[in-house]
């Protein structure tokens, strides 16, 4: 019914989808699994019309269609239930359900609220949700909002003639177990009305719900398994099956760390519902990698070490000092450096030049009585530009105009030059090309040799395995397993994925 044939999608430097064939039959639930960055979200965006493929065809009932935007896709019966919910919280439920399609209720320029309310009630009945359509959306629970979202998509049923295909992007990530079961029985029920594409990190759920499962890796579909023939282990193997190049991750430069000293210690630390009861120790010269899916608590742990997030339970010790006040200033003072995932938001200030960015966290060292020693700043910047091979015409260059890899080097130089010996790296190679990635790996090895402890959230599992001395696997905020990663006896991708999902 809905079909993709040999669909290709390129982004600058990335071949995101490689000749993907994809098919959804009537009344079917299709699962879609893959690692972060395997191309799942790109594929979904192509399906619901947010991206246009560069090659290949999209077919509905055998005819080729081309969607310019999501609205066009919706007019052809493709609906999307977003992971980050797309409801507007200060509007009522019915307004949300018919957002953009209010015209049908307008009489003489005025909305007939009664008619809309009744229509909304009919939609809500489809998802078995018995609430007043005039309720403000923010008063609903998260699970209820998810159902409203589904009801909103199901309005397509009345609007269009053909069949419906509904995408569910991580619909269970924030639901409790009973709510998940409720949602699943509802979805099975709704297959009378529509076909579903179900995307999730949770392998068990995909296996349980889907009739067929597409497995993606590196932008390609590597396998399609039927519900009956599906085997969790086999699928996980297919998701990761790749050889790791030892040279690439500078494994020969991985030295054992200093086990006697401890830089950071977590003792049964919890932070709200983001992570619970986490314990570990970071030593000088160690790369400790936190591995898990999106939302498994990796970033929250980094932010706690830096002082951006205050834990609700447990004890955090940095260099022997038990932390009671969690502030970023305190973190900086203790020698913690943080390179966040979103370089543009928390990494560099676009509009400020290279040396201004480098001294931002340590201005006190380059000023007396509040007056800056600009010449010393510049010479510091020159030293580090040379040391890290930062490609910039001069120290006056606006950092916003540097390439991603060079921006990352500026951020690292900022912390290293300030004497940080605990480095928190959140996706340090995200969006970088291969050469720039290798530069970052090289820098990580150098830092370790200099006695710096690194906590890493890697962009890929290979990166995590290749770089780390220690791997801690997290799932839904809880500790799963700890792996030692001495060169030569590193855990395999499969070992990790097995505990992740």
């Amino acid at each position, binding site marked *: 019914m809905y079909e993709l044939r040999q669909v290709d999608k390129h982004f600058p430097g990335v071949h995101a989808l490689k000749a993907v064939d994809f098919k959804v039959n009537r009344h079917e639930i299709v699962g879609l699994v893959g690692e972060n960055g395997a191309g799942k979200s790109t594929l979904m965006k192509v399906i619901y019309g947010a991206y246009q493929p560069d090659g290949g065809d999209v077919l509905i009932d055998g005819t080729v269609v081309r969607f310019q935007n999501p609205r066009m896709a919706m007019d052809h019966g493709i609906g999307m239930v977003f992971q980050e919910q797309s409801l507007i919280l200060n509007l009522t439920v019915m307004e949300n359900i018919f957002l953009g399609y209010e015209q049908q209720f307008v009489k003489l320029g005025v909305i007939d609220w009664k008619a809309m309310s009744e229509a909304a009630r009919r939609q809500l009945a489809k998802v078995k949700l018995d609430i007043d359509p005039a309720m403000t959306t923010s008063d609903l629970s998260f699970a209820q909002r998810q159902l409203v979202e589904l009801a909103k998509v199901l309005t397509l049923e009345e609007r269009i003639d053909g069949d419906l295909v509904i995408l569910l992007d991580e619909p269970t990530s924030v639901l409790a177990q009973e709510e998940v079961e409720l949602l699943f029985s509802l979805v099975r029920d709704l297959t009378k009305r529509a076909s579903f594409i179900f995307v999730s990190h949770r392998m068990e759920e995909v296996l349980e719900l889907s009739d067929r499962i597409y497995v993606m890796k590196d932008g390609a579909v590597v396998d399609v398994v039927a519900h009956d023939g599906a085997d969790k282990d086999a699928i996980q193997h297919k998701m990761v099956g790749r050889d790791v190049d030892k040279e690439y991750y500078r494994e020969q430069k991985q030295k054992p760390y200093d086990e006697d000293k401890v830089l950071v210690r977590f003792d049964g630390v919890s932070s709200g519902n983001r992570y619970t009861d986490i314990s570990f120790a970071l030593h000088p010269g160690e790369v400790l990698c936190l591995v898990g899916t999106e939302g498994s608590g990796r970033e929250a742990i980094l932010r706690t070490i830096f002082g951006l997030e205050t834990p609700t339970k447990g004890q955090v010790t940095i260099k022997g000092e038990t932390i009671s006040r969690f502030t970023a200033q305190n973190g900086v003072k203790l020698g913690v450096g943080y390179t966040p995932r979103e370089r543009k938001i928390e990494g560099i200030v676009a509009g400020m030049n290279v040396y201004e960015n480098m001294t931002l966290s340590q201005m006190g060292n380059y*000023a007396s009585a509040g007056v800056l020693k600009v010449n010393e700043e510049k010479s510091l910047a020159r030293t580090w530009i040379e040391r890290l091979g930062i490609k910039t015409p001069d120290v006056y260059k606006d950092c916003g105009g540097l*390439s991603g890899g060079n921006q990352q080097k500026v951020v690292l130089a900022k912390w290293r030059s300030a004497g940080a010996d605990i480095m928190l790296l959140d996706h340090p190679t995200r969006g970088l090309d291969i050469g720039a990635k290798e530069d970052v790996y090289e820098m990580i090895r150098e830092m370790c040799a200099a006695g710096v402890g690194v906590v890493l959230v890697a962009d890929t599992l290979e990166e995590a395995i290749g770089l780390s001395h220690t791997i801690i696997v997290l799932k839904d905020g809880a500790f799963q397993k700890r792996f030692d990663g001495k060169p030569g006896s590193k855990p395999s991708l499969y070992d990790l994925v097995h505990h992740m999902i």
Partner: protein
Amino acid sequence: MTDITAQSAPGARFLTRERIIKWTPLLVLVFLVLLFPFFEWLEDFGAGKEHMYLADSRFFSIRNAARIFIAATPALMVAIGVTFIIIMGSIDLSMEGTVSVCAVIFAFAFIGWGGTLASWAWLAIPVALLVGAALGFINGLVHVRLKIPSFMASLAMGFVGTGLALLLTGGDRIRVEDELFRSLLTVRWFNFPIMVYVAAVMLLIAWFIQSRTTLGRNFYAVGGGEELAHASGLNVNRVRIMGFTLAGVFFAVGALLAVGRIGIAETATGNNFMFVSITSVVVGGTALWGGIGGVWNTLVGVLIVNVINNGMVVIGLPNFLQDGVLGILVILAVVLSTDRKSVSFVK
């Protein structure tokens, strides 16, 4: 996800967007300075009088330049103060109240302690600056601690200031007639009164703060990326409060110059500073969302605004037109300086 690899090759493009935005205000100023004499020439030409362009202009003369500068100095001080705040991405609308309070307290103290600069009454000057700083400090505290948006906090503080000034004076005007103090206006070096030099010194101080102190750097960091400034361990709240305090000091200097100019302190001393100073900052090219611009932009902006005011008087256009022209200018300035492609929603 996607990285912008914008490593422009050296000398690739001369007229980049940044360059245009940077120099446009100055070009506008030069254009205006040449425009008004042209109108004068046109008028005389129409009447058949002999008139050499520029040389015979009443507008384009030292005497008129001094007039423009005198009118501009108090506004320049106020505008510099608010420039720091706008660089941080906030806004301060308390200037009218702060200027009035500072002016009135200065005048009371000055007269009470002897009435001439040659006596202890000179202490009234630091007192006025302290009052300005205190008001700014409170303003910053209200904004940061009570988490009230800066425009609302400062607007309210401005009203409080205006009310306070009225309470102190009871609606009276206080005359400051000390010759020594008035020499700010009356004594001229090289055709320009002392207050112009005072303003120039303050401008240099402001420039120093902006470019050579940690505080100035922090203003840009907070305006350019507050999250990042925070994640770099800066105490963003302290920077904000200090910014508002510094702005208060500059408002106080503006108040002193305003009193020096007309010799009167009253509740109305602060009138009109809000519109003129914000207009000047924006017209000068400092971005309202922070991070870009500085005190030199503000100088150009203040001059543009005052040249327009003065020039329209010289060529005999009515008052109400001036405000209209300035309003249009503000819109044009923001339109020019906003990269609308990168801004999807404006509230």
